C-alpha cells in the first residue's frame, strides 16, 4: 500500500463518519431547522473529505479540477437551498411553533 492509498483510506473513512453523522442528525434532530444543520454541514464536509481522498487516486490533473468543481457545486447548492427552505419554512410558523405539519 502506497502513501497515497493510506491517505485515501484515511480521508474516505473520516468522510464516511461525517455522512453517518449527517444522516443520524437528519433522523434524530427534533425539528426542521435543526435538521438543516445535518443537511448543510456534515454531508458537505463528508463529501469534501471523500473528494480529497479520491483525488489521491486520480492520475490526470483534469480529474482533480472536476473533483474540486463537484465539491464546490455541492456546497453552493446546499448553502443556497438551506437558506431558501429555512426562510420558506419560517413563513409558515406564525406563532413560533410548527404550525403547518404538512408543509
Amino acid at each position: 500500500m502506497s502513501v497515497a492509498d493510506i491517505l485515501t483510506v484515511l480521508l474516505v473513512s473520516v468522510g464516511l463518519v461525517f455522512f453517518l453523522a449527517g444522516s443520524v442528525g437528519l433522523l434524530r434532530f427534533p425539528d426542521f431547522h435543526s435538521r438543516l444543520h445535518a443537511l448543510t454541514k456534515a454531508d458537505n464536509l463528508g463529501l469534501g473529505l471523500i473528494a480529497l481522498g479520491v483525488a489521491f487516486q486520480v492520475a490526470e490533473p483534469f480529474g482533480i479540477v472536476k473533483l474540486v468543481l463537484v465539491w464546490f457545486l455541492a456546497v453552493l447548492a446546499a448553502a443556497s437551498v438551506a437558506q431558501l427552505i429555512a426562510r420558506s419554512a419560517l413563513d409558515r410558523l406564525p406563532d413560533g411553533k410548527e404550525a403547518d405539519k404538512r408543509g
Partner: protein
Amino acid sequence: MTAFLLLAALFLLATIALGFLRVHRGPSRADRIASAQLVGTGGVAVTLLLSAASGNGAIIDVGLVLALLAAFAAVAFVKSTAADGAGDPEEDEGP
C-alpha cells in the same frame, strides 16, 4: 484498494437508506425535499468512490451533473410555496 472503495460506497448507501426514512416520514414537505437533496449529496459521493474504484474518470462527470442539478427540485419547491407560485421566500423581508 478497490474492495475498500466499494465497501465505502456500500456504507454510503446505508447512510442514504437512513435519509430515505426522513423523506418518508416528513413530516413537512420541506423535510422531504431537503432530505431528497441529502440523498443526492450521498449519490455524488458514491459516484466519486466508484470512479476511483474502476479507474474511470468519466464517472466523475455523473457526479458533476448530479451536483449541478442537486438544488433544482428544492428551488422549484421553494418557488411554489410563494403566494402566487412564482415568488421567492426572501422577497417580503426588510432590507
